[in-house]
């Protein structure tokens, strides 16, 4: 039994069957990559996991509990964090504040009316956020407005924000897209390190095969809304179906 069990999930948009009949099982403490052509339904699948979309059919179980019908914040509180394909951060807030918010959410839950205590008085949260900034190599940008950062930086910030929640399942939708090579490598290292240090399961969508093959323990290839194959990385590379549908000749 995996920590995440997706059974027979289907989702239609008007005339388009975006997800056909998806079955997926992600084992605890592994990195599971989902790859596939553009428009295969990878992001849609993720949306079904975090409560952004409700699938038409099927079930999604996380750690033995169904996530369907729960609000996004409840799902997050169950331990699922997500990084979006286009960065979703608090543009008007500083980088430090961006990092503080998930730390508060982790400590205090979905709602906490601490209207009198000052932020600067919350030492534990501050330290944690600070440590995360250092980890993400962004400590020098602490006071910058998040909106003014370059896009690669925004994405790293978002990853940092999700990590600081110490999720049990981290969903990454193309985390290194648009990231410079150096930072991509850093991110790979970071994710590897996290995987070793913490009890964390990662599901990652990526088009950068370098990233996929450096990290993944298991790969599912999705095409036109249905899983094409699921296998170990070395087998995927050689699979002719995958080559044709996705990798192309240059891989």
């Amino acid at each position, binding site marked *: 039994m995996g920590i995440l069990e997706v059974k027979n999930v289907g989702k239609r948009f008007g005339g388009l069957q975006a997800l056909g009949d998806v079955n997926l099982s992600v084992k605890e403490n592994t990195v599971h990559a989902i790859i596939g052509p553009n428009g295969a339904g990878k992001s849609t699948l993720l949306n079904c996991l975090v409560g952004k979309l409700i699938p038409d059919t099927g079930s999604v179980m996380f750690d033995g509990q169904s996530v369907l019908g729960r609000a996004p914040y409840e799902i997050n509180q169950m331990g699922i964090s997500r990084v*979006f394909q286009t960065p979703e951060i608090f543009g008007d*807030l500083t980088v430090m504040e961006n990092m503080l918010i998930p730390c508060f959410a982790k400590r205090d839950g979905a709602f906490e009316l601490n209207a009198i205590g000052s932020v600067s008085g919350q030492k534990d949260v501050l330290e944690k956020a600070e440590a995360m900034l250092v980890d993400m190599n962004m400590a020098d940008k602490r*006071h910058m407005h998040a909106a003014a950062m370059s896009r690669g930086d925004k994405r790293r910030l978002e990853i940092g924000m999700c990590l600081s929640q110490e999720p049990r399942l981290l969903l990454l939708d193309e985390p290194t897209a648009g990231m410079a090579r150096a930072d991509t490598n850093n991110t790979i290292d970071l994710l590897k390190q996290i995987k070793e240090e913490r009890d964390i399961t990662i599901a990652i969508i990526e088009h950068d095969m370098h990233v996929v093959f450096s990290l993944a323990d298991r790969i599912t290839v999705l095409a036109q809304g249905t899983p094409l194959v699921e296998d170990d990385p070395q087998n995927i590379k050689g699979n002719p179906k995958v080559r044709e549908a996705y990798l192309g000749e240059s891989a």
Partner: protein
Amino acid sequence: MFGLDKKDTTLLIIVACLALFAPFILNPFPTGSAMAQFNAGYPDLMQRFVIFGIFAIGFNILFGLTGYLSFGHAAFLGVGSYSAVWMFKLVGMNVIPAIVLSVIVAGLFAVVIGFVSLRRSGIYFSILTLAFAQMSFNLAYSVLTPITNGETGLQLTLDDPRVLGVSQTADGSIPVTSLFGLEMRSTYEMVVGPWAFQFNVGYYLCALIMLVSFYLAVRIFRSPFGMMLRAVKSNQQRMNYTGLNTRPYTLAAFVISGMYAGLAGGLMASMDPLAGAERMQWTASGEVVLMTILGGAGTLIGPVVGAGFIKYFENIFSKINDTVLHQWFAFMPDGVEDFMVFVVHPFIGKGWHLTLGILFMLVVIFLPGGLVEGGQKVKNWIKGRGKSEDSKSGKTEPAE
């Protein structure tokens, strides 16, 4: 001090000094001089400054932090006033229970309206709040007359039942509001040479409450809750996917600001025991929106400045008439005098709206971010001329 950092403490102390010495500061011109028209240091207006200051501070907690623009906040002020006057009519003339009740009732009202309205965001939210407030206003003006006394407004009468006190005083008049016997209207007048300064009990009570409200607002701004509210404004989607439920946050902000409005309403009734339906009209809601934007939404002190600005115009400029103008320009030759009066005439007295409208436009065009940010820019500019340009970093910090 008080759990605030240095900058905020300084700000609080400045505000406290301004409030404490307002009778002096607002009365810079000797009584009887031509410029005395511009004096604002009399009890009623000073009370209004701080009461509307409270109203705007509260509004800013909702609007400035979460970005939810309520167009019906006057309803809470009105409800607060009605509760307070009923308290005076039925219970007693002490202001404390009246104020407490007005805050509670406004808070309950805000829970209901907020719960419904916050199901929508953006302009849809604004129109929902507007609709609730207009309903309250229209009903208060007509159908609810037994409770609100309609057009005339709820006033004290000689035969109010008042359980803790008398219906009328020995000399047959209506008793006045007081704080444990300290009459709100009692005023000490200090005459210094040609100046006359008025120290009014009611004003100082209001000022004190305003300071407490302001202090609380500063605390809220700097608290984790305040940061969450700013996060709501910035990106609700991210909030949700970070495990935070935005609804209770926005509702809490809504109720807090509704209670501030109720407090303002209760104070208004305590200073002058009358509650009229117009207090709930959309124009009144619009006024607090304008105060907040004019001063600087999302800044701490801005709303208070904006409130003072608008109330000053309403009360001072509307009272200048041609006779006063002639006095001002009396030193000029007759022709020039008449010409000056002719030129200035459209902007004062019955034209005070025109002046206000023009100033709104000028402020928002030339001082984006409101008066406070404009003031900061001027300060920076003056500073910047002393030093050389050293603000190269793209770092911008939220203004006070």
